């Protein structure tokens, strides 16, 4: 097998006395669709924050396409092809959706430092931004300020912003968080349509969606990987059933 698109080696991190990462080793092959699941507070978001450079692990290494990126800043990791979305909308409220995505595209194309040419003169950049928005069903609303978009549209904009960086590895932190169930499936259809060479690791609580869209699943509990396997293996594993699906089966597994 060729080297993994994304891998971590022995990631450890503590918040005070709370161990949120305990020797996390994951390895995601190129083009794979992995799901990261686990109860609330398991450390899933923290893991993504470490992988993308928002948090610095206490120890361990992060490898992107075989290269050690542990010491790189977030924006340098993005330039190497690692993008993410946020569980809680992290957008630009007073920019239009078009401006926001144009901004991300112009960053990628190395144009965002130019302070003399006018933005609309970069027609390829603007057109590309518009196409990304259109592919996320946001064409009709792209001239509106972000804060005025419907919540579900803001979730789509989260993804559009990440796509604008042309990622080779995409980390999606609960992309459908807060979206009604019937819409979340459509959202994942859009994710499933992404080109095959993009490696995707997504966090999601809805097990139906996880089983449908993930080729493999990593289960994180208490900052440690409990197990990793195919959807069939995970769903039949008694340990997983116990800690994740099992005890709290009253309201369903898709809590917030």
């Amino acid at each position: 097998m060729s080297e993994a698109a994304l891998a971590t080696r022995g990631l450890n991190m503590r918040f005070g006395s709370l161990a949120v990462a305990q020797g996390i080793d994951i390895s995601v092959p190129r083009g794979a669709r992995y799901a990261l699941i686990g109860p609330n507070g398991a450390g899933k978001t923290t893991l993504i924050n470490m992988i993308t450079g928002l948090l610095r692990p206490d120890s361990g290494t992060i490898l992107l396409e075989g290269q050690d990126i542990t010491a790189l800043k977030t924006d340098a990791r993005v330039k190497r092809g690692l993008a993410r979305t946020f569980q809680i909308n992290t957008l630009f409220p007073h920019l239009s959706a078009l401006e926001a995505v144009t901004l991300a595209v112009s960053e990628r194309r190395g144009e965002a430092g130019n302070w003399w040419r006018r933005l609309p003169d970069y027609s390829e950049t603007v057109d590309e931004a518009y196409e990304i928005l259109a592919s996320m069903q946001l064409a009709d609303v792209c001239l509106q300020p972000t804060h005025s978009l419907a919540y579900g549209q803001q979730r789509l904009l989260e993804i559009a912003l990440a796509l604008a960086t042309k990622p080779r590895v995409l980390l999606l932190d609960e992309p459908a968080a807060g979206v009604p169930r019937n819409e979340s499936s459509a959202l994942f259809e859009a994710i499933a349509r992404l080109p095959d060479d993009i490696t995707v690791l997504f966090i999601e609580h809805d097990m139906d969606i996880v089983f449908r869209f993930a080729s493999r699943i990593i289960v994180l509990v208490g900052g440690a990987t409990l197990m990793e396997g195919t959807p069939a293996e995970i769903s039949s594993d008694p340990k997983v059933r116990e800690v994740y699906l099992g005890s709290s089966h009253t309201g369903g597994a898709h809590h917030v």
Partner: protein
Amino acid sequence: MTTATESSATKPSASVDPRAFLKRQTRWSVFEVLFWLATLSPFFLFETYLSLASQIAITALFAVSLDLILGYAGIISLGHAVFFGVGAYTAGIVSKYGWGEPISGLFIAAAAAAIVGYLTSFIIVRVQHLALLMITLGLGFIAVEIANSADWLTGGADGLLGVETWPVLGIWDFDLWGKTAYGFALVVLFILFVVSRRLVHSPFGLSLRGIRENAVRMPAIGAPNPRRLQKVYVISAAIAGVAGALLTQTTEFASLEVLGFQRSADLAIILILGGTGRLYGAIIGAIIFMVARDQLADMNPQYWYFWIGLLLMAVVLFLPDGILGGLTRLVPARWRKP
């Protein structure tokens, strides 16, 4: 929007033209043209106020420089007079020691202010909120003390005497009435305003707004925030330096007051009164502040600040976008730029 959703997937919908939308934001509006024509009126209508008009133009330029960092990039500063002062003293010292040519003087002053801006930018872009206020405040105090103790160079508390400004382009002498002073200040203001306007409408300007809107998201789309902030900080410092140099050149004098906290504080007030993040707010704020101060000049200073305090509170409470923001709301939506 409607039920015809199948078109939205790939085909551009007829109502949305992204490039035209962005172009519309950069286009000069009728209001802008009228505004700049109106700035010529002191030459004809208010000749006795020409020297006030040149003070206003200088202050407006200074306020534009603050708007670039505060209104667009979200960097709060209570020490922007440092750069104004560096420009003012640099122009004055260069002139005092034999080079009174005003245009090259502006460039030299801009370079000096930009260097100081660059050196301080390393701290500025790494702190936020209260720490940022305290650091810019501290830089201002330090600058005053340095200028004060270097009296062999700056004249200390007595001010810098012996400044002499040569005629602009060898033609227009700085007359007593202030015609040349206002003309020169206005031309420089206009040129640097156009430059700032370009900057604001460039990809770089967009990335500054991005940092102001969400500094966490920016690195996650690949943007190096500190480098962007440093760049705009240096540009802003250079423009502030030009404003300071203009003051020295037109008044042929510089004193410690050019660097002082009062100037930085007045500048913040001017920008907040006029409205941040819209460039013209800086100019409108400067006009209102300076004209009001001139009209109320007979009152004692405490009394004047009583009214300014009241006005400031009223604007912040009722016109969060400043006076210009309030005015634009009176304009029909289709004439307004987003």
